[in-house]
């Protein structure tokens, strides 16, 4: 982690869905190479927070600044920015109409990041990294959940992002497949990727997180190192939540 380089700066972020105030003023700074794990009760706004970071949700108020660029500014080329911010979803969202290789090649080729040849090379390299080089011709419906999620991670990596957002990447998996996905994520963290991860995998948080952030009632109620938050939580709400999930 490089504390001299703020990668993502969130200033008083608010998000409403109609009359529902989901985020009520979230502020934080995330550094280059930092791994931030976001925890909190269901419905507390974790996904919404993550989705505001690449503007999948339009922000109601406040600012999100990535590498000095205010992404809430309508003048920002959001598509260009998203090329550098990968996102992994709970339900994988692989493109069902394409095989694995085409899933990985679509965005780099379509957005002219590189030619077909290089996109294919990249795709093969990324698939090797997640251990699925033998699945290039498979369609999503022919893969297991764990394999789908590893392909989804590889697909994001093909755009060469420098930030990765994960929204409960293992929550939809059978228990025996959680490990293979977490291993890929740990490897990424070790290589210095800036990561924001919403997860209930406390073991993963302890092992790789630089910081754990507890979100409830639309604000960050508590944050700190995994040791601080897990072993000595200050806020009663955090204590209560951890008692339920640990």
């Amino acid at each position, binding site marked *: 982690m490089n504390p001299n380089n703020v990668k993502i700066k969130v200033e008083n972020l608010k998000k409403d869905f109609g009359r529902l105030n989901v985020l009520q003023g979230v502020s934080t700074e995330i550094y280059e190479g930092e791994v931030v794990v976001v925890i909190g009760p269901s419905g507390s706004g974790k996904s919404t927070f993550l989705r505001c970071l690449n503007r999948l949700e339009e922000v109601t108020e406040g600012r999100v600044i990535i590498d000095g660029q205010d992404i809430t500014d309508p003048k920002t080329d959001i598509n260009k920015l998203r090329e550098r911010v990968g996102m992994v979803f709970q339900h994988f969202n692989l493109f069902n109409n394409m095989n694995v290789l085409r899933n990985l090649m679509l965005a780099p080729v*379509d*957005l002219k990041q590189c030619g077909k040849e290089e996109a294919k090379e990249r795709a093969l390299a990324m698939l090797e990294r997640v251990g699925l080089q033998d699945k290039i*011709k498979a369609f999503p419906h022919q893969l297991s959940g764990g394999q789908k999620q590893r392909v989804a991670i590889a697909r994001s990596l093909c755009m060469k992002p420098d930030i990765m957002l994960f929204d409960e990447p293992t929550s939809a998996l059978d228990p025996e497949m959680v490990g293979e996905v977490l291993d890929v994520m740990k490897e990424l963290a070790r290589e210095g990727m800036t990561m924001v991860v919403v997860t209930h995998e406390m073991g993963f948080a302890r092992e790789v997180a630089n910081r754990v952030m507890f979100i409830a009632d639309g604000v960050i109620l508590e944050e700190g190192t995994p040791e601080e938050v897990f072993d000595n939580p200050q806020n009663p709400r955090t204590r209560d939540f951890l008692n339920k999930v640990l």
Partner: protein
Amino acid sequence: MAQIFNKYGPILITAMGQTLLLALYGLFFACIIGLIVGIMSVVKNKFCRGFALVFVNLIRGVPMIVLAYFIFFGIPFFCNSILKIGGVTLTALQAGSICLALNCGAYMAEIIRAGIQSVDIGQMEAARSLGLPYWRAMQRVILPQAIRTMIPSIINQFIITLKDTSILSVIGFPELVNTAKNVVASTFLSFQTWGIVAIMYLIVILLLQWAAKVLERKLKYESK
């Protein structure tokens, strides 16, 4: 029946050709209208969605025979007598094609809207999160999946439209029903004539259904 067919077969087959020609024109423009209006009904823009809603409900709320009279007689009358633009006429083929295109287009728009909405929202989000613009994501990810689920309904609509061409006999287009009426008028052999006409429709529609089955099989996602 064989006698009738020997004698009137050629003109009935020519009439079937006219029916198919009318259906083809109608369906071609219906597909374009359906795609445009169908997409308009799923985009964010309120004006587009409003327009699509009004169009679909307007067409659905008017019987096609009324639409046919309105286009064939009403529009030229409006242009000539009210707008005072002389010499506006529509041939029965033109009016019929417009009528079918509007009618079938409205139903196609509904099929396409439902097809697009049946694709999991996560597909669009994943595409957008990779940096693909909305239209690109639509084109590469959403529509290919939507069209696959829409094929049975689209073929069904094609069949309905093909049969609806018979309604356009009322504006004098020489399609199959109109022609058959004339044959019956001169021969009085209504059982045989209408029997032949029914069989001719049936054959064309069965062929269409068979083609649909082949197409559906071709579009399965498989690793090859």
